[in-house]
């Protein structure tokens, strides 16, 4: 018997929604960590009962919570994220040097094979890892130290490392993305890194094709095609077929190519999803219509998906970590909005249903597909 568990991080707590494979009736638990911002929760692929959550607040700072029972109970683990050595400076919004200061964990990426190993993307941008289930965190200092770090500038939401993708075919390879520094790759487990932004074109920076400085919003990859990457940038949807060495634009016929989320169908590596947002000055959906766009060709040709989604007077945003897919047949697609709705499709996006309507603003969505006996 299959089950789906949707992990929802919001501005005021976390919620967990569970359903069977039909995905029609949902049991909701929460709010967990009520009143705290939950930037991200994610489960371990190596142990589906092991979940990690990033819990933070402007008053009390960062907590990392861990569950060993699928989210029923939680315990705080380590929350010390100290930069390695003398942190130095990055650029501030006005170009002046600004000290590196830890603010929060934006994204948690559990190892594909070890439930005690997790990577954390943080603000101010850096990557940390734990090998003891979250008790202790250490910076992979090669990222900030590879040379371009002092020139990184924050985007409007801060200088945040928000995307971490692990290569299932190459355990030492991973990709990350930073707003607003760009995308980077390591091939040696995080010791050394290189910018991988060739082909990106960003009009808002002095040199539109610079090595760094691009505001990458999110990257997605299908596990069967390591190195085929899809990117939603601050304007433009991009694609790389060589691990990020070169990118090309695949925005095609999208009504607007600004947005935050991007994701890949669980079984169709060339089927991708975005939610176009009107503009960088107007962070809500285009024309008052909440539309997911799907391309079955890896970009360029896009189809609007609207059935079950509001098509008038809708002015929500969908933030960069707020979309995910399950691996059932047919693939389920889920996303959450800043208006507090969580929408689900049990048919790869053809039709949508709200499975939560009145949550606090949604910051992240992750989905676990569970196969249980009985």
């Amino acid at each position, binding site marked *: 018997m299959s089950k789906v568990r949707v992990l929802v991080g919001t501005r005021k707590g976390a919620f967990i929604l569970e359903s069977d494979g039909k995905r029609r009736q949902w049991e909701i638990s929460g709010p967990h960590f009520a*009143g705290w911002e939950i930037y991200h929760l994610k489960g371990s692929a190596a142990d589906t009962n092991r979940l990690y959550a990033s819990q933070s607040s*402007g008053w*009390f700072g*960062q*907590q990392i919570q861990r569950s060993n029972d699928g989210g029923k109970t939680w315990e705080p683990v380590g*929350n*010390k994220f100290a930069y390695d050595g003398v942190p130095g400076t990055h650029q501030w919004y006005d170009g002046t040097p600004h000290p590196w200061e830890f603010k929060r964990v934006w994204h948690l990426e559990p190892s594909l094979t070890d439930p005690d190993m997790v990577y954390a993307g943080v603000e101010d941008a850096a990557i940390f890892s734990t090998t003891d289930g979250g008790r202790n965190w250490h910076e992979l200092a090669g990222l900030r130290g590879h040379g371009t770090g002092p020139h990184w500038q924050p985007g409007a939401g801060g200088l945040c490392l928000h995307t971490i993708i692990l290569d299932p075919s190459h355990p030492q390879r991973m990709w990350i993305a930073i707003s607003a520094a760009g995308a980077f790759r390591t091939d040696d487990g995080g010791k050394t890194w290189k910018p991988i932004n060739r082909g990106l074109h960003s009009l808002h920076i002095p040199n539109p094709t610079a090595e760094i400085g691009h505001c990458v919003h999110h990257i997605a990859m299908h596990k069967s095609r390591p190195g085929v990457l899809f990117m939603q940038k601050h304007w433009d949807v991009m694609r790389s077929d060589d691990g990020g060495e070169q990118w090309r634009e695949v925005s095609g016929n999208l009504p607007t190519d600004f947005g935050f989320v991007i994701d890949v169908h669980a079984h169709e590596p060339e089927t991708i999803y975005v939610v176009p947002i009107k503009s960088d000055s107007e962070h809500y959906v285009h024309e008052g219509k909440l539309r997911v766009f799907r391309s079955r060709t890896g970009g360029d040709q896009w189809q609007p998906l609207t059935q079950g989604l509001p098509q008038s007077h809708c002015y929500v945003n969908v933030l960069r970590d707020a979309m995910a897919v399950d691996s059932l047949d047919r693939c389920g697609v889920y996303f959450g909005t800043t208006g507090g709705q969580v929408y689900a499709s049990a048919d790869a996006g053809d039709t949508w249903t709200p499975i939560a309507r009145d949550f606090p603003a949604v910051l992240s969505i992750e989905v676990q597909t569970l196969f249980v006996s009985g």
Partner: protein
Amino acid sequence: MVRVILPFHLRNLARVGRELTLDVKGPVTQRSILDALEAQYPMLRGTIRDHVTQRRRPFLRFFACEEDLSHESPDAPVPESVAAGSEPFVVLGAIAGGSGFGPPDGGSIARITRF
């Protein structure tokens, strides 16, 4: 024994009630109170004082006997009544603040009433 009152969210995090008591060894100062608090409740490390600098987090204040102690030296003795346990040491979260806000200027908390 020193009495401590924590803000709502830290009570939940530490799973304690409205007021807790601590056995503080040696001189009773802000630092020694917080050291004892964090030793007994390790999940509170980093929530009141920055992990690395050990400075008070900007949106928290320390009060006792209706006085704001936030700008006192962390190693200065707290009022005798706090050390004696007749008055609580209060860790108070600012009403202002949250995500997107910078640190407040001094004096952003206008009035403290007795608990």
